[in-house]
């Protein structure tokens, strides 16, 4: 009986990468399954559009597959993959057509303002729930006006998928800078919200 494709259940990334390098495409498929969520959310953080993020994720996985031989294991596979994704997302963000598209017709698909309102929790009154929703709406709008280097860090942290150290590697900046941007971005955000009547300046 010829050997069957080895199982990929409960296998570490390192082993999956080794298998994929050896030509086992199922192993790479497993890596796709494992990391697609984190990769997609990182792309969303950069692009704020589901469609754009989806395109970038596909490009990133394809690039990772082609460059698998270049992966030296200096960081985790996930960090390496996220770095590729981030670069591709930034390329897309910087492109002139993207700039025009964003400024001429704002992306509707990622507009959280269009989401249906969350159902109020049992402890909240309807009015309270509406007020909190309004506040979150303002926060989202203000976040969009932040300088990209602050906004990127804040959103990457908010995914909950990455450590600060991983974010530093993905963005290619020192850990201290990530921490500073996170705190400064938040301070800036609060200051802008204060102008709208929320919290202290």
């Amino acid at each position, binding site marked *: *009986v*010829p*050997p*069957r*494709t080895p199982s990929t259940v409960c296998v570490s990334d390192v082993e999956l990468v080794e298998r994929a390098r050896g*030509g086992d*495409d*199922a192993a*790479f*498929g497993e890596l*796709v*399954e494992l990391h*697609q*969520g984190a990769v*997609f*959310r990182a792309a*969303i*953080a950069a692009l*704020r559009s*589901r469609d754009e*993020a*989806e*395109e970038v*994720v*596909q490009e990133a*996985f*394809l690039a990772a*597959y*082609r460059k698998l031989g270049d992966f030296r294991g200096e960081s985790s596979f996930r960090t390496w993959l996220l770095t590729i994704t981030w670069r591709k997302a930034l390329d897309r963000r910087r492109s002139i057509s993207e700039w025009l598209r964003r400024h001429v017709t704002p992306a509707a698909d990622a507009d*959280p303002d269009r*989401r249906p309102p969350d159902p109020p929790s049992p402890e909240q*009154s309807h*009015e*309270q729930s509406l*007020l*909190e929703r309004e*506040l*979150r*709406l303002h*926060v*989202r709008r203000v*976040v969009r006006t932040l300088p990209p280097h602050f906004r990127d860090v*804040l*959103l*990457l*942290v*908010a*995914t*909950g998928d990455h450590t600060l150290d991983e974010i530093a590697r993905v963005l290619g900046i020192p850990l201290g800078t990530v921490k500073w941007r996170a705190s400064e971005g*938040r301070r800036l*955000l*609060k200051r802008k*919200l*204060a102008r709208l009547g*929320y*919290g*202290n300046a």
Partner: protein
Amino acid sequence: MREDRPTPNDDTRLDHAIDQALHEMVSEAPPTGLSTRVRWLLLQDSVRRDTGAVGEQVAGGGPAWGGHAWGRRLVPAASALAVLLVAAMVWMLGPAGPGPDQRGSESPAATGTSARGTMIGPQGTSVGAAAQSRSGAPSRSVPSAGAAAPFLARAGVADAGGALGAVGGITPPAAAAETRIADAGGTNAATVPADVEEDPRFPQLVVVPLPTPEDVSLNPVQLHDVTIADIRIRPLEIAPLDASAAATAGAATSDKDPKREERQ
């Protein structure tokens, strides 16, 4: 209702709202089928690279060309010219209706399945045909589907929607060991020999036979969302039946395929 609205002193609530809003901005689940599409792209890339390697060898590596730059430029130019000539001929001859011998002429590569596309292997046979024809061998034969099997098997799909059947898709033993889906939706699905179905080498052989030979249309049969990981196959979408095509297909299959009749 002072306590209801965040006030200048209500920093905790504000912090909470900020965290929540930021999280909402990025807490998106990946779209359904994303990994399948990625795998499909990888498959296409794999096929492209494998067949591209043959092209490079001919174009630049052989002694006839001597690896000269002009040789490498000439071959694409000649290919482009050939494509133009073929296009001109097709235009002059005019559009022809699909015939029985044209089944399988569309492949995911040929139809230009987009990155967003969910259609996998509308005519799996031609995946074999396309891959094989690029390497110079005759297409539209059972061996051609077999030759494509290694590429297909890497993605866990063999001859999805294929007209030539699982036999062609899984014949090469090396590829067969990796094959997870063979001939899903294939016209000749019912012709899978009993010995293949019972062969322990094909534990995950999935056969989705079309209901009757009369349902076989010459239009592409679309197999949606083949998910490799858990071998889930969603319902087939069968294009409207063309009466003459059905008669042809029915005659063809009834002649060749007594086993199909037995099963039905």
